[in-house]
């Protein structure tokens, strides 16, 4: 009887070891909209899940050659894009087909990849892991490698309650890491929060942005998450963009509108990385041929900018660089988790 009482006491005092990950609340930055869907609805965000996801993200074992990790093409210092590469390198010196985008504020997206082919953050990682040009690994072999790596069973146990290593848990953990990558600490954000102010030419650039760029690259995420044909035409890889997913000719050459946040850190630009400099991109939009078939109607209205205006716009775009994001130890390789929201 005393024994039972002791056990009951133990249960209530929580003195015996039970599964209890620490919640890692997802905080929507001040003034931002709620994400359209809750990506953590069936995948509660926890420190343990995040740490496991981060460990997997930086682990080359996720690829067939065991050296190419998610972070090989999504570099920490480059807001998780591939710095200075139009196409990233997959395993065995293969090239990917599109420019690796920066990874941040993914929780506000309703589709992923340049063509929007992926409908949920949890299943996104399956693409790069299994693609022969990227990490080229099979799920069977990957799970086997993780099970045989003494580092992982305890991490899975801490995150999910037992040491079972499954596709579902792998994907959910990765989504906890990538879904928690929030970049909202740029100078622009400081200005919006009344903690800083724009220099006069940045302010002028902001006005130009609002006039010419904001309908697609809408605040505060600096993208409306939709698709657009910006007139670039068919590249040598015959990449038809959104059409490949929907099969609809009206979606031909439409690509996901990327965020302008952290622009300075994510060269080169466009879905195929065909423009190396932001100035090139700005110039491009001032000289688009409005007679191009299927050009997004919004781009048919000419954008006329003086050289001074272009410099002002550029100065504003540089205020979207978030060094608090690129230097956030929580996102860096290693075990730091010191979230302060």
């Amino acid at each position, binding site marked *: 009887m005393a024994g039972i009482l002791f056990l009951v006491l133990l249960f209530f005092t929580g003195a015996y070891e039970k599964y209890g990950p620490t919640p890692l609340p997802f905080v929507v930055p001040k003034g931002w909209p709620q994400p359209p869907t809750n990506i953590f609805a069936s995948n509660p965000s926890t420190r343990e899940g995040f740490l496991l996801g981060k460990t997997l993200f930086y682990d080359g074992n996720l690829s067939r050659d065991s050296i190419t990790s998610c972070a090989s093409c999504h570099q920490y210092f480059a807001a998780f894009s591939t710095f200075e590469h139009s196409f990233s390198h997959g395993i065995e010196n293969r090239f990917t087909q599109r420019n690796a985008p920066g990874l941040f504020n993914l929780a506000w997206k309703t589709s992923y990849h340049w063509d929007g082919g992926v409908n*949920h953050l949890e299943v996104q990682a399956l693409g790069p892991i*299994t693609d022969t040009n990227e990490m080229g690994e099979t799920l069977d072999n990957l799970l086997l490698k993780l099970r045989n790596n003494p580092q992982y069973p305890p991490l899975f146990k801490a995150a999910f309650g037992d040491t079972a290593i499954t596709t579902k848990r792998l994907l959910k953990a990765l989504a906890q890491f990538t879904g928690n990558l929030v970049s909202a600490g740029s100078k622009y954000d400081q200005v919006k929060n009344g903690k800083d102010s724009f220099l006069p030419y940045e302010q002028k650039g902001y006005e130009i942005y609002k006039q010419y760029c904001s309908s697609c690259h809408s605040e505060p995420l600096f993208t409306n998450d939709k698709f657009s044909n910006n007139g670039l035409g068919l590249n040598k890889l015959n990449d038809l963009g959104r059409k490949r997913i929907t099969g609809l000719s009206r979606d031909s050459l439409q690509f996901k509108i990327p965020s302008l946040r952290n622009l300075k850190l994510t060269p080169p630009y466009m879905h195929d990385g065909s423009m190396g400099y932001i100035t090139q991109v700005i110039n491009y939009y001032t000289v688009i041929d409005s007679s191009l078939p299927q050009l997004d109607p919004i781009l048919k209205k000419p954008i006329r900018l003086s050289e001074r205006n272009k410099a002002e716009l550029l100065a504003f775009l540089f205020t979207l660089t978030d060094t608090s994001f690129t230097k956030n130890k929580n996102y860096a390789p290693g075990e730091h988790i010191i979230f302060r929201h």
Partner: protein
Amino acid sequence: MNKCLTTFIALFMFTSYKAQSQPDMQKIVIHFKHVANGKSLHPDSVYQNPLGETYSVKKLKYYLSNLGFNKQVNTNISLIDAFATDSIKIMLPYPAKKGTFNFQLGVDSIYNCSGAQEGVLDPLNGMFWTWNTGYINFKLEGQSDYATTKTKHFEYHIGGYTGKNKTMRQIRLPYAGTDRTTQLYILVNLDNFWKGQSDIKISTTPVINSPGAIAKSAADNFSGLFSIIQQ
């Protein structure tokens, strides 16, 4: 996303409706007998489709969901593999009288749009598209001299879960038996894959691997594949 939500609500309402009635449940074994040209399907055999093309089959896998008699269904999803898992055991309320045995060939849209799944829906099973999210509802692969591909390989990955591209199909098979047998035998006749509402010709269409009009017309042939073998 709205589509997801509606499906979810529909599914929820459906399951809550089901919970109210308490029919007599029993375990039944459903056997799927895969044939082509009247012969059992075997990976080393050569068959001829009704369009006169010879072929062999390397893989035949498909999802079945919401199996049941008349209006009572079991919402579990099964993955049938002609060369590995050709029978399933499920709990079903047995029909009091004759009617139909029903199921859906494919995976409900809700599972196509709500993130990582497990069990038969684990992407490990090779029935999931990674570049265009969604399950492959039906997969048939093989070799044929009629295929215009370099390797003479043909491949039909039939999927698509939204709007016009939906390839999940409701199958209703007349069921005459009223005895309480616990075995049900279903004939899956591959001859009808090639010729049904539309023709699927290996020589003209050796590969289907994305949602769209062609996948949809292939899915329209699904209902012809199945019939109950009366014992």
